[in-house]
């Protein structure tokens, strides 16, 4: 891949194309000046009567800071809700509870696609014209109360189940959003073996014991080109999730391949399952894998998605495909449930729905697919939600809705007690604002909080029980606690400000919340810059008054855990957290010890590698210094026992623990092990 990359890059670099004179810096400066003048004339001209100056664009930072200072003063007088009333514009009309349409034939789908093709832009197509006159209205199934059981994060550190038996040590599990709903990742372990997807897209199976590892086998493509993205492991089965490329067609499809690994040194293919489209995400609940893909219908490409074995997929029936009102573009979400239990040849169900998706939230009985849509002038964003109920192998696309704004990640969504909650960032008069919507079991709006944290956007969300914890960021960087115990009346209960912002919120105990994120520094020009990694520990025992208990900043450090929760490893038994880190710095910055308030450095006993984790001997000449490793820490009433464990390798991507040993895996597939002494 790198060779191809370099080859193509070389060709592009030598094409000799340069930006023309009309796009010079001077011409652009003149254009910006002219635009500003025009705007000023328009505004003063239009508002001459009222004498009222309206801002049409988002201003640069210095004026923002002044505005924020005024706002802060006003908050002190009116309280938050009073200020929101003064400042909020016309009430938000969130659009929820739309109806789905089931196609009656392939011809109908064709007609819809054609109408999208003919319009000069992908405008809003009204269904019903040219299609059948009777719109079929989907009724949401009345699910029994038992099915509505809360499957959120229930307790403290509940994701690491730490199974133990006489034969295997306790071991780490993938950090999950929802208990018992497994998420695919590039590394898995079962306490005896480590399974890892290298950058070269092979799965390597290693035995691991007492810090020593041995490569037993690899699983790669088997004839058909299979670009493996991540895996699941269950008992003696390895399930790969990947993208399939067939030589005879340009169409991409996604597939899971199930291997029998009862003999870890000789994995054997049991069966495979593919479906049209690019992988969006997947989940595994019990013995069922749910695979979600996006399929964009290209001109000349297949209209109806297909699924089945890689060698022989079959088209879906029109009746298994439905449509959202006003579909935005010719694309479909394809959802399959595949039984991967042994002895089964992959029985499956597949449904598809018009729409696209970029984030999903999945629990053991519902899958929510969301995508961001924009209105015709691209200034207002909406999130289109499509829900598919899951009942083992039964998949039923049964509801859809739309709310204002866009979501930050899968953690922006949650379902509890039959209510779906979603936090978004939207726009109001050109300014960013934030919202939390609560939708009922029919996806109709039950309650909402809108317009909070103006000029900020959501960076992290965590739903825990009846509370939502939301971090927003811009000039002020607060943690908000929203009470959701009354679905009809969600309300902001409390907030606390902190510098920097978290991008991942982790419940540590019922009174403690840990944030992993970014530290920011003042750039001296009225703005901020990303200065490194930040850990923050919040006391959430009194939701009306959350407090910051402790925080630690690590200069120039970044971690995959800042944007991918799978990179976080939690050891509940020993009580520590581990994340991979990278540090890039040059000697012009302060090259001394990067950890503030560090404990004494850890002693690594009996390790395979000799580790040093204090920065020593800065070179005299200016150069970039790169270091990588695992950052370990504990969080109780303080963040302590911090151990920046440097490793000599290419970028560390993941770590797992088995018993007392931590195994760190890098981008090339190398494993290093050490015993932490926290």
């Amino acid at each position, binding site marked *: 891949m790198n060779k191809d990359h370099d080859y193509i890059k070389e060709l592009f670099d030598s094409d000799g194309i340069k930006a023309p004179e009309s796009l010079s810096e001077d011409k652009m400066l003149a254009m910006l000046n002219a635009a500003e003048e025009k705007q000023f004339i328009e505004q003063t001209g239009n508002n001459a009567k009222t004498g009222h100056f309206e801002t049409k664009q988002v201003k*640069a930072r210095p004026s923002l800071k002044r505005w924020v200072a005024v706002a802060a003063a006003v908050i002190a007088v009116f309280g938050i809700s009073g200020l929101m009333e003064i400042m909020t514009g016309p009430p938000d009309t969130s659009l929820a509870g739309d109806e789905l349409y089931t196609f009656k034939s392939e011809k109908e789908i064709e007609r819809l696609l054609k109408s999208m093709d003919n319009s000069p832009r992908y405008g809003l197509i009204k269904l019903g014209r040219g299609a059948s006159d009777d719109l079929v209205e989907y009724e949401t199934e009345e699910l029994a109360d038992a099915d509505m059981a809360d499957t959120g994060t229930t307790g403290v550190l509940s994701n690491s189940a730490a199974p133990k038996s006489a034969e295997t040590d306790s071991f780490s599990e993938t950090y999950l959003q929802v208990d018992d709903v497994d998420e695919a990742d590039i590394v898995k372990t079962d306490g005896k073996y480590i399974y890892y997807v290298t950058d070269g897209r092979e799965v390597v199976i290693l035995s691991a014991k007492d810090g020593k590892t041995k490569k037993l086998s690899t699983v790669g493509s088997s004839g058909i080109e299979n670009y493996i993205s991540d895996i699941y492991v269950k008992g003696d089965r390895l399930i790969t999730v990947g993208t399939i490329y067939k030589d005879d067609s340009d169409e991409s499809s996604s597939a899971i391949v199930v291997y029998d690994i009862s003999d870890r040194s000789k994995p054997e293919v049991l069966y495979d399952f593919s479906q049209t489209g690019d992988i969006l995400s997947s989940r595994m609940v019990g013995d069922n894998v749910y695979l979600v893909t996006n399929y964009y219908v290209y001109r000349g490409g297949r209209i109806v998605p297909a699924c089945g074995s890689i060698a022989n997929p079959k088209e879906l029936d029109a009746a298994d495909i439905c449509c959202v009102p006003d579909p935005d573009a010719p694309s479909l979400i394809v959802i399959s449930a595949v039984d991967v239990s042994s002895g089964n040849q992959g029985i499956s169900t597949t449904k598809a729905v018009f729409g696209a998706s970029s984030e999903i939230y999945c629990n053991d009985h519902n899958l929510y697919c969301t995508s961001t849509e924009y209105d015709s002038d691209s200034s207002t964003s909406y999130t289109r939600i499509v829900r598919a109920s899951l009942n083992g192998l039964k998949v039923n696309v049964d509801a859809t809705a739309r709310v204002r704004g866009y979501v930050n990640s899968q953690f922006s969504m949650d379902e509890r007690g039959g209510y779906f909650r979603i936090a978004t960032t939207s726009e109001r008069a050109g300014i960013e604002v934030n919202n939390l919507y609560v939708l009922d079991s029919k996806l109709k709006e039950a309650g909402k909080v809108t317009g909070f944290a103006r000029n900020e956007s959501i960076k992290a969300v965590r739903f825990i029980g009846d509370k939502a914890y939301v971090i927003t960021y811009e000039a002020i960087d607060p943690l908000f606690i929203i009470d959701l115990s009354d679905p009809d009346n969600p309300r902001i209960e409390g907030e606390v400000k902190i510098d920097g912002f978290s991008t991942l919120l982790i419940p540590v105990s019922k009174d403690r919340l840990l944030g992993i994120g970014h530290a920011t520094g003042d*750039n001296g020009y009225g703005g901020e810059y990303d200065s490194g990694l930040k850990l923050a520990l919040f006391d959430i025992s009194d939701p009306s008054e959350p407090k910051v208990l402790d925080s630690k900043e690590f200069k120039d450090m970044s971690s995959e855990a800042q944007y991918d929760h799978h990179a976080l490893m939690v050891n509940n038994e020993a009580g520590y957290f581990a994340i991979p880190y990278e540090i890039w710095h040059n000697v012009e910055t302060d090259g001394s010890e990067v950890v503030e308030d560090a404990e004494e450095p850890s002693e690594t006993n009996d390790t395979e590698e000799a580790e040093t984790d204090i920065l020593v001997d800065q070179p005299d000449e200016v150069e970039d210094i790169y270091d990588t490793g695992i950052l370990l820490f504990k969080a109780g009433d303080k963040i302590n026992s911090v151990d920046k464990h440097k490793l000599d390798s290419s970028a560390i991507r993941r770590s797992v623990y088995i018993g007392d040993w931590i195994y760190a895996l890098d981008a090339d597939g190398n494993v290093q092990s050490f015993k932490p002494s926290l």
Partner: protein
Amino acid sequence: MDEKMINEAIAGSKEAFCSLYGIYKDKLYRYALYRLGDPTEAEDAVSECVLAAWQRIGSLRSGKAFGSWIFRILSNCCASRIKEMIGTRENLERIYDSGADSVPASPSLSVELTEALSQLREEERDIVLLSIIGGLNSTEISSLTGMAAGSVRSKLSRSLAKMREFLS
């Protein structure tokens, strides 16, 4: 990347912003040219991008983010141009789908690269251009296009291999 220039631009200096733009202008123009196939359209897209970027300068967080930030804006400008061009499919088809006999619209577009790009789907082309010309990594491309990062990596890998095979 000059932090001082970026900080000044964020603080409101048009001159600093334009100097910053100057560092990127060749990449921006080349990306737009290969994506839209026409130099006039590419010029318009870049101008539109500069204006839009200046109006949103407050949303730029740091120097490190400038590349992916401005390419996201340019990518959206190109995408809406593609949607709005009347007969746009004809333009792009003329450039990209007619195979070996097509003459590139602009004499400066590399013939062999254009033909190699024509072997790809529109979204694969975009990923290649963002990666090779824009210098964005797969995480940045993923957040820009809304595609899962794994999909981006696999498509990029596959597209580059296809192009190389075509060119050798």
